């Protein structure tokens, strides 16, 4: 049976035998950094465009939280399925969504993933196996549980994963999802993105007992991880995935991190103590991974330049794209009976571990 020490904090001080990097090649470690750099660069660019009036509505980012989505998604196989939330752009990047499509999406252009039907990070490219979120949180926990339920019923070695924030755990759907997943022992990974604040509400006003401690009450393990260590996030998710596909049931992973920007671009986060922000700035996930990768002799500056250039080109392409045709606003409410069935498809799964697996070990459909 799979893994040990899943109840133990995984972080920089974990013994070498369990060290996350044991499962990561240099390419993986660079890839993790590259994906985080893309997420950060795309969001920075989008923020600029927002300030220039090119992004309608509101804008949300995951600045300072890049490791939570990138690290976890890196452990997902092509056939696994994800419900991605608004501070998890890195998931889309790892699964293969192009920066130009993301920027088009923010700007409400025809070439965006939803062709302007939904805004900002409320998208999921079904061609990469991702389901677009709704604003009511944490509704997507149930959808992820449902996908896992189907995998289990069909006897498939696949899992589902979703993120949700500390605030959303106060709502009933959190309980229903945790309970359902525990009762049916589903192959689902719930990542609690604890970034200390839900809009202006700090966690001490949100719950009396940290949700990760309550996982046992639902019948499965809860693990706390340094959410700003992308390799630790990867490892925790990898372990949870192993548990899931071997029939060991769900895992709740608490990714401890900090929301470094406001709730949205419209929020100046005056309510957050400055000292707290500074403390977390020292732990910036991109800086930390850059340092690691530099030590391996990789030219991080060149990588940053490459990412920057790609995002610039993507922005140019996105800005040139047309807005959606108003005449189409009432189209496509119902899928026609005789049209082809549309289902979630496989996404990119860049982890070296998947290609190194023997064919028999590869996740089956």
């Amino acid at each position, binding site marked *: 049976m799979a893994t040990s020490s899943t109840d133990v904090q995984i972080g920089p001080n974990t013994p070498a035998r369990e060290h996350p990097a044991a499962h990561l090649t240099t390419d993986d470690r660079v890839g993790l950094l590259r994906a985080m750099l893309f997420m950060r660069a795309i969001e920075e660019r989008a923020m600029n465009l927002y300030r220039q009036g090119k992004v309608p509505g509101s804008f949300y980012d995951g600045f300072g939280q890049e490791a939570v989505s990138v690290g976890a998604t890196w452990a997902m196989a092509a056939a696994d399925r994800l419900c991605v939330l608004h501070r998890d752009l890195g998931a889309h990047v790892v699964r293969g969504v192009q920066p130009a499509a993301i920027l088009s999406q923010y700007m409400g252009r025809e070439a965006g993933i939803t062709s302007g039907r939904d805004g900002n990070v409320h998208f999921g490219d079904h061609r990469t196996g991702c389901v*677009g979120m709704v604003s*009511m949180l944490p509704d997507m926990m149930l959808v992820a*549980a*449902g*996908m896992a339920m*189907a995998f289990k019923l069909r006897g498939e070695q696949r899992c589902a994963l979703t993120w949700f924030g500390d605030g959303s755990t106060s709502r009933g759907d959190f309980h229903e999802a945790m309970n*359902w997943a525990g009762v049916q022992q589903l192959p689902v990974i719930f990542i609690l993105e604890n970034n200390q604040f839900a809009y202006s509400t700090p966690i001490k006003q949100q719950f009396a007992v940290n949700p990760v401690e309550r996982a046992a009450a639902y019948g499965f393990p809860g693990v706390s991880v340094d959410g700003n260590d992308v390799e630790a996030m990867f490892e925790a998710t990898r372990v949870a995935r192993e548990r899931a596909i071997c029939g060991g049931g769900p895992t709740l992973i608490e990714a401890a991190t900090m929301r470094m920007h406001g709730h949205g671009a419209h929020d100046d986060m005056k309510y957050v103590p400055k000292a707290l922000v500074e403390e977390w700035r020292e732990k910036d996930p991109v800086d930390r991974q850059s340092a690691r990768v530099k030590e391996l002799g990789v030219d991080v500056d060149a990588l940053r330049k490459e990412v920057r250039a790609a995002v610039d080109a993507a922005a140019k392409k996105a800005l040139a794209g047309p807005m959606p045709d108003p005449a189409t606003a009432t189209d496509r409410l119902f899928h026609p009976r005789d*049209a082809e069935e549309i289902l979630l498809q496989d996404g990119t799964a860049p982890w070296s571990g998947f290609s190194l697996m023997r064919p028999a070990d590869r996740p089956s459909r």
Partner: protein
Amino acid sequence: MTEMTYLRAISDGLRNEMRDDDRVLLMGEDIGVYGGAFKVTDGFIEEFGADRVMDTPLAESGIVGTAVGAAVVGLRPVCEMQFADFVSCGFDQIINVAGKMYYRQGLPVNITIRLPSGGGFSGGPFHSQNPEAWFMHSPGLKVVAPSTAEDAKGMIIASIRDPNPVIYMEHKNLYRHVKGEVPEGSYETPFRARVAREGNDLVVITYGAMVHTALEATADLDGASIMVLDLRSLVPLDEEAILSAVHDCSKVIIVDEANQTCAAGAQVAALVAERAFEDLDGPVVRVASPDVPIPFSPPLEAAVLPSVERVREACRQLLEY
């Protein structure tokens, strides 16, 4: 063709689809081991197993939300809300997750949600509701409400095969009181209206249990020729059938068992007023339950739900106009 009850027809339809398509999965409270609160799924767990006839936790939001997840990876879940009234516990998942997914993300959600609805048996406020209007008002959901055994089977089959979320209103007072000839095997009833009785002096437009009330009320009314139009499908609403009936009859009574304000009939009335104005020979009249929770004690309930007598009197008045 076999004569069977409305309830048995629904079972038949479900069984048909479960046998034909192993992607179909039933989910609900007490539907497996117990066979369902109303015995619609009696015998199913023995034939199909506990995996496909799933006894879920008491969690309406969970039932709908997990069904959405299962649907987008290729299953065809049919959810049961034990009583239509409990659907409000899963409202958010239906309205915001299931209903809007395709429009926003291009990902269709093939789920069916069965709601045993309606009153007339002292069920009281929480076991007698007709909540279809909530779902008609929410874009991205189809809503159907068969009134005969034949349509009950054909529509549950069609609902399961429709790639979009379908709210299927099964009126529980019709379960054992309505019988009819039902074809064997597989067939689908289209999401369109049906003329329950032809006529041309006046048309009663309605659906669900009220179709039977309307037929009884107008069977022999001073020799008048009264059409009864059974809508069967609320979203999509069969506008053509409605306008054609009004063109022929020019006098319209719309009957809702649901509470009057913003019931399905209100939408029909607005449609008629706007698009059939020149065909009208009298005001568009509605008969519905007043805007109160459905009471428990029999004399109170009978005073609230539209009765045969109330419908008959409304028709008589309009015929005389």
